[in-house]
């Protein structure tokens, strides 16, 4: 009986959103979750990721529809404004719920 229960809980692990679960993307989404929007430079400074690394993670999040990316030209320089989409917000909340569930069930 107990074994079935823990098996069920462990199975939730497989349902966890792997796109968000990756540490760098988790950092990006967590930051965007608590703010309205931010530009590329701010996110880069907060996460400590390199330009290329951040761009690559943002592309994945944008493809999944979790993050909206708006590019504009300001003072002859590219300015990238990032915002968590409604879908991204829901996905993160779902992820957080599942993770709490799993972590809560790890008590002896």
């Amino acid at each position: 009986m107990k074994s079935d229960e823990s098996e069920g809980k462990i199975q939730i692990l497989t349902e966890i959103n792997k796109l968000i679960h990756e540490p760098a993307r988790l950092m990006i989404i967590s930051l965007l979750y608590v703010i309205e929007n931010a530009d590329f430079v701010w996110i880069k400074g907060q996460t400590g990721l390199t330009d290329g690394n951040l761009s690559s993670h943002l592309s994945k999040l944008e493809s999944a529809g979790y993050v909206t990316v708006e590019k504009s030209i300001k003072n002859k320089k590219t300015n990238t404004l990032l915002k968590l989409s409604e879908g991204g917000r829901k996905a993160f909340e779902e992820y957080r719920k599942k993770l709490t569930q799993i972590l809560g069930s790890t008590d002896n």
Partner: protein
Amino acid sequence: MDIYFGILIASFAPSLSLTEILPFPLNVLLGPIMIGFGLAFFILSKKFLIKPRIGVVKFGRKRKVRKRRTMVVLSINIVILLILFLLRVSDIGGSFSLPFLIEGYLFLTVPLCIVAYFLQFTRLYIYGFLLGSGFFLADISSIIVPIPYNFLFTYLLLGGIIVIIGVTYLIRFLRKYPLPREET
């Protein structure tokens, strides 16, 4: 922010002590010119030094709530202080008068400490105390500096201290955050 605040305090100096000495319109305009200079420095440094280095962020609901709360508490505080001030200058208060030090703390330090608390800007507590002590320090300094130059001396000194702190923080900031290469 610190540099702007320092210049703002220093701009009190000409208004408080040079009004009668400087020729018109310089006596009236010197204070506002200094404030304008400080404000221009604040806006330009934010645009050309800070934003390119740390980027732009628009904070969420929590920060907005805190800002609104600051405004409410500060408004209540200003109303209370205004009543106290009116009592002080009108006949209603009778012999109601406070020493310079208490007045400075009450009318300047308290509001600034409230702003510092809500904005979580720790240095503003110190600046609040420096500014609040201004009238008292000017009063004391009149022993060595003739009136009305005691105000000039005190407020330039206090403003100068804050500007120096601000410049130190700015240099540290510029060293810590070099200008990033253009994003890819």
